[in-house]
């Protein structure tokens, strides 16, 4: 009975976590993706699941490199199916000043097996947050006896290497790529959503962060596709240019 309750409780927190990280998903049009989209990342997920399991009870820094928000949330969902490790999710806010303090606050009364940190890329004063992290890195390994997965984008990574090079030197990395057709789908949905945001003038302020993150994501996706030598079809190209 109590096990069941606990399980339910877990599900509850998980659901909350998912809801929060899923801000990029336009709910009515949630695309149902066949598993083939995930298969390229299955290996990376297994790697992540194994590392978390092997590091429960001690500090370990893992960078998960992935540029696309929606892909991230799908990956996390799948990861939870693969492992019993209780992974807590921490969504950083734009205004957060320190990584250490924010994590400390999150886990203080509430121990967990592992922690995942999202939205580092959206933090307002990133450089300062990163240098502060570097300064207090000793505290991470002394006080946090659980693995920490930090999700990073290609924008954030060089800044992390520059401003927190010692902290970063503790990290192992798992990379998540996105398949070309999935990338195009993402680009379509992102541009759609940006249109929607721009049209609903009232919602604009509320959706600011979403719009901002998504615009960046569109730019990354575009560069990514160009890098792969993929030509966009005209309609999509026009939409991207408008955004």
């Amino acid at each position: 009975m109590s096990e069941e309750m606990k399980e339910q409780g877990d599900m509850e927190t998980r659901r909350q976590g998912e809801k929060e990280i899923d801000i990029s998903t336009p709910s009515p049009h949630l695309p149902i993706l066949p598993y083939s989209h995930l298969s390229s990342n299955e290996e990376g997920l297994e790697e992540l699941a194994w590392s978390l399991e092997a590091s429960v009870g001690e500090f370990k820094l893992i960078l998960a490199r992935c540029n696309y928000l929606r892909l991230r949330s799908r990956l996390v969902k799948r990861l939870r199916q693969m492992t019993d490790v209780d992974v807590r999710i921490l969504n950083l806010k734009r205004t957060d000043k320190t990584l250490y303090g924010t994590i400390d606050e999150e886990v203080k009364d509430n121990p967990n097996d592992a922690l995942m940190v999202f939205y580092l890329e959206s933090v307002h004063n990133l450089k300062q947050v990163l240098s502060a992290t570097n300064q207090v890195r000793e505290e991470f390994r002394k006080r946090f006896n659980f693995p920490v997965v930090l999700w990073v984008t290609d924008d954030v990574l060089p800044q992390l290497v520059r401003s927190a090079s010692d902290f970063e030197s503790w990290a192992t990395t798992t990379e998540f790529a996105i398949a070309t057709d999935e990338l195009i789908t993402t680009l379509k949905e992102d541009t759609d959503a940006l249109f929607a945001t721009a049209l609903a003038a009232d919602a604009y302020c509320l959706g600011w962060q979403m719009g901002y993150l998504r615009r960046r994501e569109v730019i990354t996706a575009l560069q990514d596709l160009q890098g792969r030598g993929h030509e966009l079809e005209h309609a999509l190209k026009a939409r991207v240019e408008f955004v």
Partner: protein
Amino acid sequence: MSIDLRKFFQATNPSKTLAIENAEDQKYYIDFSSVRGGKIIEELRDNITFFSPEEPTCVLFTGHIGCGKSTELLRLKMELEEEGFYVVYFESSEDMEMADVDIADFLLSVARRVSQSLNDMSLDEPSLLKELLQGAWRVLNAEVVGMKAKIPVIGDVGVSSDKDKFSLAFGIGQITAKTKDDATLRGRLNQYLGPQKTKLLEAINSELLEPAVEKLKQQGYIGLVVIVDNLDRVDSRAKSWGRPQQEYLFIDQSEYLTKLQCHVVYTMPLALKFSNDYGNLTQRFPEDPKVLPMVSVELPDGSIFEPGMVLLRQMVLARAFPDLNPQQRLHRMTEVFDDAKSLDRLCQVSGGHVRDLLRLLNNWIQRERKLPLSRETLEALIRYRRNEMTMQISDDEWELLRQVKKRKKVRGDLEYQALIHSRLVFEYRDAGGESWFDINPILAEASELEEG
């Protein structure tokens, strides 16, 4: 007995430092002094135990972050203890906000750690220090109470509720707790103590260090050594009046760093070695800073330095086979790696940087999750790491890197500091103790480094 993969993975976690007094960690420890060009730790030790056991000494210790400084300092501590010294080792980052350090914070931190360590030794009540602390406490509390209470009611600093006796460590701890995370209060404290720093230094010497050394000698110790680790974390941001913090602390305030009446070893940021003010620094300290160089894997002419490789291989294998002797480990190497060449490639490409090596190895295990580890994966990880490094390199920096590659030298200016700090360039020592530089081997194969 087969290898416990999970344990091997944990033993290679790059965020871990070896604590030499821990029996388990001792099995992982490899003494690299023979390939670091000069036995730095031995020199530090002899400097105290042989040349000047009675007179206080002061030496700065530096090296690339992650090259094993803390591990070596903990070894120094152990060796000094074996020789009969009382050693206080602490990490300055625990007491101080390393982005904003002033000399008064520093002196207080030393006093706190020494008196904490000597807890049960009954020294006379330090009246001067008590007075200074109470003054500081008043200043800090006045700030908190603000306008509301005209006469702030404050308890005595340094007196815990359970005993009436004044405790220096407890008192300083109360002050540190207030100021560490609060820039305004830190400013207040330093405004108050700054002008009195000579008095503070004298009080620490006459009321704490000198009587402590006296008592320690009565107990059979030869002397007192204070090792301050992590002081190299002081970053280079400018103080409010424009002076970079590193220069401010280690050069402008050197008088206070060098006058403590016991043996002291401080870690210093490596970047200071490349500062234009470095000459000033060496004049102000009795000895030139000791640099812990990287483990050499190559010679300046590019040929393999076998003694370095031998020890690095052992370092890797010890993490897989902590209980075997070096010969047995080599015999079982193929259980861990698909080929002896894969292990050599790992050691070579690390450039002798211990943490970078562990990081690659740890990622390698993470990626494969079964043994033996394959060369193919290692090469993929090397490419990934190279890509990660090149993302942050500007055109100007590529030019500097080409110069380093050719000349094996680094000039002292800001750009080079950045290259050293981001571990794009490493410093080595040859057998004669002469230093030379090379670019991180991971970068060596980057196309940008080809001559045009």
